């Protein structure tokens, strides 16, 4: 009986430790990376959002949530990534990614073999229903403005015609320390 009780204790401890890790991950991830899904051709909320269940047309990275390790090692580099940039139309498309509004220091990646990092183009036709991944590393300015959040857009463009097929807004938000009346910068 004692052995069974101890066995249950160790199982519960394992579950508890993973729960703690999961809770930590949940608390810091929104400040370190923006995960999203993106559909094309689409517009507005249909273009995508932070998950398939949350199509908002906007991805928000809450910088205040960054973990202590991230703040110590690499506080300014944020990843905005998607496992699924999906052709929801009915014709095959060749696509290119365009970004606008971000600080100049960005780096784009895809794990697709047809990815051309110079042109940011997937150099093959993507059939209806096909999806590719896309990562954008954004290096934020030294002091992201508290009152004016850094933001930008990720666009999917038809590489043949140049027509914009979808646009998703990304916002890096930082609340900063609470301001009180009398502070120099308080309104």
């Amino acid at each position, binding site marked *: 009986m004692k052995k069974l009780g101890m066995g249950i204790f160790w199982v519960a401890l394992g579950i508890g*430790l*993973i729960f703690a890790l999961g*809770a930590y991950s949940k608390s*810091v991830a929104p400040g370190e990376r923006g995960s999203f899904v993106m559909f094309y051709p689409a517009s507005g909320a249909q273009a995508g959002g932070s998950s398939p269940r949350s199509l908002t047309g906007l991805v928000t990275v809450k910088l205040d949530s960054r973990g202590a390790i991230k703040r110590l090692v690499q506080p300014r580099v944020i990843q905005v990534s998607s496992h699924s940039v999906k052709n929801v139309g009915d014709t095959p498309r060749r696509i290119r990614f365009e970004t606008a509004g971000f600080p100049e220091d960005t780096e784009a990646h895809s794990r697709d073999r047809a990815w051309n990092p110079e042109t940011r183009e997937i150099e093959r036709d993507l059939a209806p229903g096909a999806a590719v991944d896309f990562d954008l590393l954004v290096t934020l300015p030294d002091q992201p403005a508290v009152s004016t959040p850094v933001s930008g857009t990720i666009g999917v463009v038809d590489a043949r015609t140049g027509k914009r097929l979808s646009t998703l807004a990304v916002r890096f938000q930082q609340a900063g320390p609470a301001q009180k009346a009398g502070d120099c910068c308080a309104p």
Partner: protein
Amino acid sequence: MPRSALATNRLKRLAVFAVGLVLFYAPFALLVRFFGLLFPASAAGTSVADAHGACLRMPLGWLAQPWMWASLGNNALYWLPIAVLPIAAVAAGPLFCGWLCPAGALPEYLSHAIPDRFKFDFKKHVDIVPLRYGFLAGILFVPFVASSVCCSFCNFTQMQNIVSAASGNLSGFAFFSSMGLLAAAVWVVPLGLFTKGGRGWCLFLCPAGTVMGLASWASARLPWFPRVRANASLCSGCGTCSDVCPMRAIDISESDERTVNDHLCVQCQDCVGTCPTGALEYRKPS
């Protein structure tokens, strides 16, 4: 003599781990490339070939993400960790862990550089098997209530980053997350260098290894399948086997066939050559 047999076995395993590295990890990833040639329209055919091609952690995480199940139809390679490796573990034990997995081998081999007196022996302080299954249960079910740690807390990704960097591709080190850094540190330092055997991550935080251990244990008593087994009549109780076991799977206090714990043993066979009386063999049940 037994110590030289141990060194020979470790060298043999190191050579096979190198094969595992070439099969699964970029820039080689030959197995992933082979599947890509067989199924050019699948994810294995269209994505960059690396360690993520044959991942078990992701399909486990998809228990809480049913919309991802379609990926199983789009990548035949996912069936390797989901079906082929557990079936192989039924037939011969978790040989993948003991002989082919470079992410398990790296901390194990690095830990040989640290004197044992500085290492923590989980076997002496923890009931490893239920804790291991507790971690697996957590990895499976915590995503329903908190964040999944399948991808963010992955040593395969860290290993891939190291191999890519060694081949000149530093992109894996362009971005660090708190969880990624924590995983890398825990994998190599407390659960690697400073764990007796060097395989603390394999013991607790690798769901693929735990699933294969379960498959191995469930089939170990069947008459057709070989495992590392002890012959109690030959055992002198010297404890050498237990001392060299990287998975802390041998308990010499029970001098019968249960001496080798089938939940944990990865069939590396370091113990077999080390035993001075030849009491351990990789064989079918007698």
